[in-house]
């Protein structure tokens, strides 16, 4: 990277700090709905392709060799003042998309795992992934109108979550509810960050 030139050019404009939060969960759990309810624009879509670089390096179990794999992701943007911009990425829950997860999880502030109580098992891979990777995450139970209501404790038990992982009930369609979910996540991530590196200076 020609960082000298990049730095100088970037210096002309004060660029905000970009931050990402992942919204994970099974198909139809409400990922895009949550991204849309809290973002400043309707959800946008991007697409990642697994190229040659991954073959033989990444875990491709479940994906036949030498086949191009594409995954579409919906995402949204929340501008926070002039200095920060938060991107929310809806990430597909299936394990065969892990090649995208690894890239997305890199540098992510944290992740929301959306659970649909009608298909709770769909969010197991996401929970396992973030637990193993050490990404701070919370579980947001999307309360669908036609789904049986469960207590948070029942869901916590069913997902076998560590005691410090917050579980919240939400309605992904409602901005205030999605906001509360994100605030809970960032508080949790900040607490985790303080536990692991309490000695760090406050400013960069």
């Amino acid at each position, binding site marked *: 990277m020609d960082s000298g030139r990049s730095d100088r050019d970037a210096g002309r404009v004060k660029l905000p700090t970009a931050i990402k939060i992942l919204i994970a969960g099974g198909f139809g759990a409400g990922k895009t709905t949550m991204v849309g309810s809290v973002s400043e624009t309707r959800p946008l879509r991007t*697409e990642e392709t697994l190229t040659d*670089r991954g073959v033989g390096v990444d875990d491709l179990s479940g994906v036949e060799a030498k086949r191009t794999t594409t995954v579409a992701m919906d995402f949204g943007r929340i501008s926070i*003042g002039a200095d920060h911009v938060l991107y929310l990425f809806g990430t597909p829950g299936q394990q065969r998309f892990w090649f995208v997860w690894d890239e997305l999880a890199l*540098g992510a502030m944290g992740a929301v795992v959306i659970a649909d109580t009608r298909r709770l098992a769909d969010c197991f891979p996401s929970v396992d992934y973030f637990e193993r990777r050490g990404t701070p995450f919370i579980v947001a139970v999307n309360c669908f109108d036609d789904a049986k209501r469960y207590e948070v404790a029942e869901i916590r038990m069913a997902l076998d979550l560590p005691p410090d992982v917050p579980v919240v009930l939400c309605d992904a369609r409602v901005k205030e509810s999605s906001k509360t979910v994100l605030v809970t996540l*960032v508080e949790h991530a900040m607490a985790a960050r303080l536990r692991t590196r309490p000695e760090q200076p406050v400013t960069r």
Partner: protein
Amino acid sequence: MTNLSGDPTGEQWIDDEAGRIVRPYVMTRGRTQPSRGKIDLITLVVSTGPAAAAEPGLGPEHHVIVKICERPLSVAEISAHLDLPAGTVRVLLGDLVDRGLVALQEPVQETGVLDLETYKAVLNGLRTL
């Protein structure tokens, strides 16, 4: 591979498994990797000035990127605006960085190294949405 019959131009070719494959890789002249390091989906891109219309080696998509990045945009947003895969956008961005037409700002690449002020700013921002 099948030609998507609904498309009157016949331009979009669709692989049954992989989706659209031809156009983006023609645009990058077959390249799948950018000319320089890894570029994240939330890497911010900003134009450093207008591109000369006849800049050799640049296609219309390059010029669109320079135009829309007059205000900083992430790679994901450029991908969405151009309706191109992120990988294709990365290659095009590599061309533009080589020519000094855009500057990139990489995000923090490790969880846990964000400073506390960032967490606080995000919390305050979310609460006042």
